[in-house]
């Protein structure tokens, strides 16, 4: 009891300071989560250390929801201009999501070479392009589904079906957080609403709920239920908590050695601390005007996503393990997401304008603050889009090929990995599956994807199922 009281005092100290341990890890270390969490299949699990020296401590995942057209952004295809208006042939049945296949359509955007590497990038991302030499661009990623939701789930969990833990949950399960006052896995979605597939994108599937992503809101109270309603004063709340602690501690004496009860007592103290630490972590007004401007907070077009990006940097800085940002939310699907069925030019120029500066600002800021080397930035959508047109100027879904880039974590920048075929219809050279992508992300975090397992249903489950090959150009130091 004595140890516990002093510990309690320690925990009530200020927000900053304690590092090196995640919440789950912290509780577990003291055996406080011990009452073996009965998981759905029975066996207990515990957080662990990385399998080897990690290259990245945190991940910022930038998800462009709705499906970014690779042939209009990061994968130029001159053949589309050459064969414009002709059917796409010789590729078997062309499967599109909506309607019938149209003819080949050139990109409405021009491309040019950027950086010393001479990476070809579309005119709609001029600022991201200025970081070309920091990007490792994969042009041969392929997914399994042309359905938004299934494709979102595949990127999130490796599976196109519902019910599996997201990569953020796996990372949290594997590593915990470095700051026990904040959730280890944070999600900030678009002001228009959540992405396709909703909360299952950050669910913990068959793992305990403690590994699921916590949604932080860009404005107002960042976490649901973080604060009591205004009519409960802090004094009253503290008085109630003190009474609760006394009664619970008295009760726990009847169950000596019951770590579950102790963990619950402690969870209240952590919760109490989160009330002040979480708002501080995402308070972008604490940043200098120059920084705010860097992220585009001075412009209503770039402000929303700029705010999300800036929050992400602040969270990573405070030891949050996995920050999942979504751009594009379920308002009006054709307008508010990257789902450019109607008009790829209109849709993509608008959305690119919203994210270009914020993402560029994030990369610049991470570099300047020295966080870049320990942070992995991943930019992705759920699939690419068709090289053929939909009703003249739109593009339909294409899981056969998409472009995803990574930066940070000391990955070699300025490299292009793999390629799609001459039209961008299918991945061609060095096809990369989502399992490969996940395996490589875990590797950068210091984990072997074949060893990060969770026993469920009589089987040691993995994020990568039985698949996943490391992408050599990404994981090579």
């Amino acid at each position, binding site marked *: 009891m004595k140890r516990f009281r002093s510990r309690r005092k320690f925990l009530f100290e200020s927000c900053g300071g304690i590092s090196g341990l995640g919440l789950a890890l912290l509780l577990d270390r003291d055996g406080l989560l011990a*009452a073996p969490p*009965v998981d759905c299949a029975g066996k207990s699990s515990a957080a662990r250390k990385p399998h080897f020296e990690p290259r990245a401590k945190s991940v910022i995942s930038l998800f462009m929801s709705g499906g970014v057209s690779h042939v209009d952004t990061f994968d130029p295809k001159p053949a589309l201009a050459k064969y414009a208006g002709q059917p796409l042939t010789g590729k078997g049945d062309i499967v599109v999501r909506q309607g*019938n296949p149209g*003819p080949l359509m050139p990109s409405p955007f021009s491309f040019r070479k950027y950086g010393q590497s001479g990476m070809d990038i579309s005119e709609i991302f001029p600022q991201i392009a200025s970081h070309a030499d920091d990007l490792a661009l994969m042009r041969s990623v392929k997914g399994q589904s042309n359905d938004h939701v299934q494709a979102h789930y595949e990127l999130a969990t490796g599976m196109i079906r519902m019910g599996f833990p997201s990569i953020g949950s796996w990372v949290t399960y594997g590593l915990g957080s470095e700051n026990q006052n904040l959730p280890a896995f944070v999600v900030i979605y678009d002001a228009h609403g959540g992405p396709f597939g*909703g909360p299952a994108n950050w669910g913990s599937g068959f793992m305990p709920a403690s590994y699921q992503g916590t949604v932080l809101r860009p404005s107002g109270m960042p976490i649901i*239920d973080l604060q009591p309603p205004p009519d409960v004063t802090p004094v009253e709340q503290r008085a109630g908590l003190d009474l609760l602690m006394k009664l619970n501690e008295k009760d726990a004496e009847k169950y000596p050695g019951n770590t579950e009860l102790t963990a619950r007592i402690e969870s209240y103290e952590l919760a109490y601390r989160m009330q002040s630490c979480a708002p501080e972590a995402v308070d972008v007004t604490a940043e200098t005007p120059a920084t705010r401007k860097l992220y585009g907070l001075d412009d209503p077009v770039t402000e929303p996503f700029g705010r999300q990006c800036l929050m992400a940097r602040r969270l990573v800085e405070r030891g949050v393990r996995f920050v999942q940002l979504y751009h594009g939310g379920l308002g009006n699907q054709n307008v508010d997401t990257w789902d450019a069925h109607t008009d790829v030019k209109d849709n993509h120029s608008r959305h690119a304008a919203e994210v270009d500066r914020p993402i560029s600002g994030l990369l610049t800021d991470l570099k300047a603050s020295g966080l870049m080397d320990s942070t992995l930035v991943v930019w992705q959508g759920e699939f690419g889009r068709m090289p053929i047109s939909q*009703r003249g100027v739109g593009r339909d879904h294409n899981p056969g090929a998409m472009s995803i880039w990574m930066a940070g974590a000391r990955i070699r920048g300025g490299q292009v990995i793999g390629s799609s075929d001459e039209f961008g219809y299918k991945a061609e050279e060095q096809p990369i599956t989502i399992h490969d992508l996940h395996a490589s992300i875990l590797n950068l975090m210091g984990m072997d994807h074949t060893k990060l397992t969770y026993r469920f249903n009589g089987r040691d489950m993995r994020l990568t199922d039985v698949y996943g090959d*490391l992408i050599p150009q990404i994981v090579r130091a």
Partner: protein
Amino acid sequence: MHRLNLATKLGIAAKGIGCTIIEVREPTRKSCQNRLATELRLLTTVLICAAAASAADRQISFSKDIQPVFQATCWKCHSLAVQSSGLDLSSRESALKGGEGGVVMVPGNATKSRIYRMAAGLDKPAMPLGGKLKAEDIEAIRLWIDQGAVWDGAVKPLVTEASPVPESPIPPEARNYWAFRKPVRETPPGGGNPIDAFVHKELQAKGIKPAPPASRATLVRRAYLDLIGLPPTPAQTAEFLNDRAPDAWERLIERLLASPHYGERWGRHWFDVARYADSNGFEHDFDRPNAWRYRDYVIGAFNKDTPYNQFLREQIAGDELETVTPESLVATGFLRNYAKVGYREKDNPENRYEYLDDMIATLGRGVLGLTVQCARCHDHKFDPIRQMDYYRLQASLFGYVEVDHPLTSRSEADEYEKKTAEVDARVGELRRVLRALEQPYRDRLLPAKYAKFPQNVQDAIATPEAQRTPGQVLLADQVIRGVTVSSDEIDRTMEPEDLKEKRRLSAEIAQVEKTRPKPIPVAAGITDGDYRFTPDGPGDEPAPGKGVKREAIEGSFLFRGPGRYQTPPSYLLIRGDVNSKGPQMQPGFVEAITYGNPPVELPPSSGQTSGRRRALAEWLVSPDNPLTARVMVNRIWHHHFGRGLVSTIDNFGKMGEAPSHPELLDWLAVEFMNRGWSVKTMHRLIMTSDTYKMASEYTDANAMAKDPENRLLWRYGARRLDAEIIRDSMLAVSGALNLEVGGRPVFPKIQAEVLASMQYGIWKQQKEDGPEAWRRSVYIYRKRGLPLPMLEIFDLPNQNISCGARNVSTVPTQALALMNDDFVLRQAQLFANRLQEAAPNDPSKQVDLAYQLALNRLPDALERKLALDFLAQHKLVGLAHVMFNLNEFLYVR
């Protein structure tokens, strides 16, 4: 070795410069979807010795050099009989067509031809799967393609039968595994309650003493929370405490088993197994407006103590029993509880295989405690379950189609269908007339619509059909098929007379619509039919371009005779690949746990279904089935003690845990069957044991040292309440609980910010929660895309996978919810109001009552003092709120 290096080296090899050893790590199946029981990789070592440079000049003959290779390997899966991945290599023409992955052969360019690339291991998966070609054969393929892939000689190959899947016999010793032997009822090793005899025997063997009995006050709370999931009221507590008759405990159990709330509690356990929800899941998360009837059926079945064997029969084959009742039809919703993508299965058969897999997984884990679904792609890695067994089970289920069973009498349903058809016909006729009237106007308006499309589209449409380029044909088709003119637009251009006629027709349609009969109640269930003729439902709009019924056959959706229904053919799927059909399958079961020769079809006299599901149900509930009874008694045990005798509730296979008390498990299983599969009887048996009545507030150094996990049951294991019970308990204590039983689901308030994360599907909440939403949590709408946050945070299981044992986590967000959530604070206020009303301005009485209501006991002196000190300075609602946060409140002990 990484792929890139590999490619480089192979490139060299292919150019004939040297000899390279290549390792290709190769998964054995394209998309195993998470089924494999273990990592399943083959380390294939391909030795490629490039042929001598001179070989480049060698002329390759298909018939001499290639055909024997194809015959021995490729054609097993890519020929006339079987076309894995849609690829048929039986002729040059079909080979050039390619498969689902696109082109595989580019004559004149081997390095761009995937046949060569996969054979050489340049692309994955390397072919043939699980094997390798000889280096000279790979080289021959390369040269042959480079030389133009000429198909000389034999134009047609011999038809290659699908590679036969070897019927691997079950080794005789496999049945010796404890769970596959039929349970044997050992004589209990002592008198008294046999459960105690078995438990004490193990404890004595280890030299551990069991805990003393719990206090009667603890027991009454334990019994209420266990059986009905609500804390006892002070009056109910007093009733038991004051009942000094020797059978007071037995009568308490009877009272609780007779309560309508018993089914709400124990039905909820079954819903975890049955992955029950009220919506489809995935993108649109469509409402399942009649799913709740299945929920009520389950609650009712537990309340009536429907024998478990009958309960299973109804859920698996309620539509093909000799006596079909409305309830048994509702019960068939069980198999339909899978999350559904929502696009037509006839266009996307791969989804249907996922649903079938989900059914097999649910029956396997939920009923048999076996991970049968692991055998989808290959024989099970740990248990003697073969891939054949999986596909026999799949064949047993394969006839299923989703239907809405009418719950009225046949004549009422017929009348309804007849009237609906009449209205449909009349309305259809009127609409045709209306459409014809509008047509000239529509034709006139359409060109202006096309003007809104980009120039290339307009040009395409303007070009006469015969002169359109192939690309223009595509463009024009896309637009012409999709563009519509609205009724209003037509109205604005209509001649007055035509407009008048249109209005008259519209009015007439409205009149006819008024005669449409009111919908009759229906159950969302299944029956046998032919899924290839499924009528469209919500979300089933044909994906254009995919609306072709590829497998169209003579027949119809539901079989109405004459003669007998025939199940559509199903096949063994090689490596689980929907496109790799093996032999056609007959229905059957998991052989290793099948005793005797049970029938695989029990067709009902109506002849309208196959009777395969009924046979499956009978096999499951047969006394010869070694698992069904064991798994269910173990579930019951788990929910009483927080841990099963087999702790891996859903897995009795080799990867599961061995039973802590094997003899007791068997004894209970046999008793369960002998006593008519009565679940209530098992409660009586278990709850009247001393083992159940032990104290949890007890420790013993010796016992802790020998059995820290309490596997041997030396004390009662305290455990946190389930999510629903936490919410229900708060409502019960605040006095707000609405105890109405059954009916449509309710929608408690969810914060707007949370709702915004999931926009599709329904959530019909009121502005403020009131009694309508304050019903028991089992009645809350289960939305797959958005579980109620308050419940989810307390480990509500994922509603898309069958789950026997919930996680129990302890995280700060639970504390935040209990501290700050609107619902909790509102209930705390109502609780405070209740205390104030019962004991106006009498803090001492209020504290006593708060303890009695929330914890079924009076406070001790210190607790009373602490509470009164608090009330001296703070509001009553603060105390009420603290009570909801006490560990004692959140635990059953």
